[in-house]
């Protein structure tokens, strides 16, 4: 398909640029001549770049799934209480079982993310007037409540700094051996691709899904599990990346529509490309220092989000 070829090549280009941008001199020439440069590439640059791709693709896909399940354009893991709940889970694991392996912490974070997002959908089903803007507002409020609880305990136990790390995505600490959990996110993203049609049908509503012989609750459960796990993995390894799940699926939707089967690969590529580009900007803009990617994505993402809001003005009513 030619539509996917162009973004795929663009992401590949960004991938290569990301490998060779940084403080140390790593370039195609030096890695052949200098064993230290090769070492740096394999231990730091390549893991970082892979982490960017996996986290970006995963979070953008999670956003797409959330938008289908909530039947609303303006939800994503960070506007539905998912990220905040995952952080709370991570805090709970850190406090109650400090020696726990990252995989275990991720499990606890997933469980909390699942419960928090489930609560979001439970509240939504009880809100009588489900206007376009009420849905993300409910999510943001829920996220605020959860994050207040998290901040309280983090403050009491002197963990505010860790909390900050989970809430703001940063890839500067990614090294070989410290990002591999993200491959789980890649597997989940692929699982979402395979269930693409189901998510489209879920987006058409429960009556549509039932009419077509699909079990709506099962699709919801499956989708929410994917969203919760991807979010937990990303929060645990690199920290939350705001706006990504909102901006990328909306931009893709404007051009290609919402048929998940067609859109999901583009959303995943878009997410990867967006995060790669923001990370490169963060590394270049005041080199040799770095601006955390959460900040860059926040600035670029909110600008893009505003643009989307203005273009979609007619839909908000």
């Amino acid at each position: 398909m030619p539509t996917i070829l162009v973004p795929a090549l663009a992401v590949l280009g960004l991938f290569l640029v990301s490998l060779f941008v940084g403080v140390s001199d790593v370039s195609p020439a030096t890695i052949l001549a200098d064993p230290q440069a090769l070492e740096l590439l394999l231990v730091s640059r390549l893991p970082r770049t892979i982490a960017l791709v996996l986290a970006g693709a995963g979070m953008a896909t999670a956003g797409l799934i959330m938008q289908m399940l909530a039947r609303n354009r303006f939800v994503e893991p960070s506007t539905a209480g998912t990220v905040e709940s995952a952080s709370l889970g991570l805090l709970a694991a850190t406090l109650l079982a400090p020696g726990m392996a990252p995989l275990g912490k991720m499990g606890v974070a997933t469980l909390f993310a699942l419960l928090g997002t489930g609560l979001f959908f439970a509240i939504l089903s009880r809100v009588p007037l489900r206007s376009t803007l009420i849905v993300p507002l409910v999510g943001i409020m829920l996220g605020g409540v959860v994050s207040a609880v998290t901040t309280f305990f983090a403050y009491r136990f002197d963990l505010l700094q860790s909390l900050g790390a989970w809430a703001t995505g940063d890839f500067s600490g990614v090294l070989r051996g410290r990002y591999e959990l993200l491959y789980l996110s890649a597997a989940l993203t692929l699982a979402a691709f395979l269930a693409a049609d189901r998510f489209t049908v879920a987006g058409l509503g429960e009556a549509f899904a039932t009419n077509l012989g699909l079990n709506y609750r099962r699709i919801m459960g499956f989708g929410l599990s994917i969203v919760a796990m991807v979010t937990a993995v990303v929060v645990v390894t690199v920290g939350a990346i705001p706006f990504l799940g909102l901006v990328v699926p909306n931009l893709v939707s404007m051009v290609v529509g919402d048929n998940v089967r067609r859109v999901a690969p583009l959303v995943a590529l878009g997410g990867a490309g967006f995060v790669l580009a923001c990370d490169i900007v963060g590394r270049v803009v005041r080199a040799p220092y770095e601006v955390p990617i959460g900040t860059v994505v926040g600035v670029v993402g909110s600008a893009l989000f505003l643009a989307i809001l203005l273009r979609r003005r007619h839909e908000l009513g």
Partner: protein
Amino acid sequence: MIEARSVSKSYGPALVVDGVSVTIPKGGVTAVIGPNGAGKSTLLSMVSRLVGMDAGTVTVDGLDVSRTPGDVLARRLSILRQEQAVTVRLTVADLVAFGRYPHSKGRPTIEDEARVEAALAWLGLDELSGRFLDELSGGQRQRAFVAMVLCQDTDYVLLDEPLNNLDLKHAVGMMRLLRRAADELDKTVVVVLHDINFASCYADTILAMKNGRLAHQGPPAEIMRPEVLRDLYEIEVDVEEIGGKRIGLYFDARG
């Protein structure tokens, strides 16, 4: 044949459908009429297992709708509810293709694709097949949804107020289409209608509901009578025969 036996449903304290037993014969067009709140939509939703019933059973060709697996039933019976706000941006062709999901499970064969083409053509949507749903007029969008349920190729097609938001021309077009679906494609069409005259002109059988119960059932000639309509809607409706059709004149009815 659709058979409902003592079907009931309440929402909180309100009993919406109250022990309805009805048999809808196979073939032809059956119209469900009645005043607001009579339980028409709820009955249709229970028959199509969108809403669970509190008591009673519904069978479709002998299959109990509450026990039959959803995907098996999806090849027998399709339901189109009153159009809800669809936020998903799909093209007309993609939407219609989803009607094939119960058959293709997401792996459309050449036959599935041919049926999508046929459904698009049947509803005159060929030209619009690449357009997004949110770029269509209300009437065109309604036609796209009907194309989807026809593409599902079920023996039974249930539609809840498909004439909502349609102007006269499109309403007539829609009813002609449902009539043709029954006559040419051998579908059993069950349709909830507000306008008794559309029911009179296009249906073979009319089910009249009131206060959650089945009030009357019969061919239009039996239902389209002043005393029946008075009992149903609690207003005086004169009925005239115009061009062989019985038409209710309710526009200046006395309460």
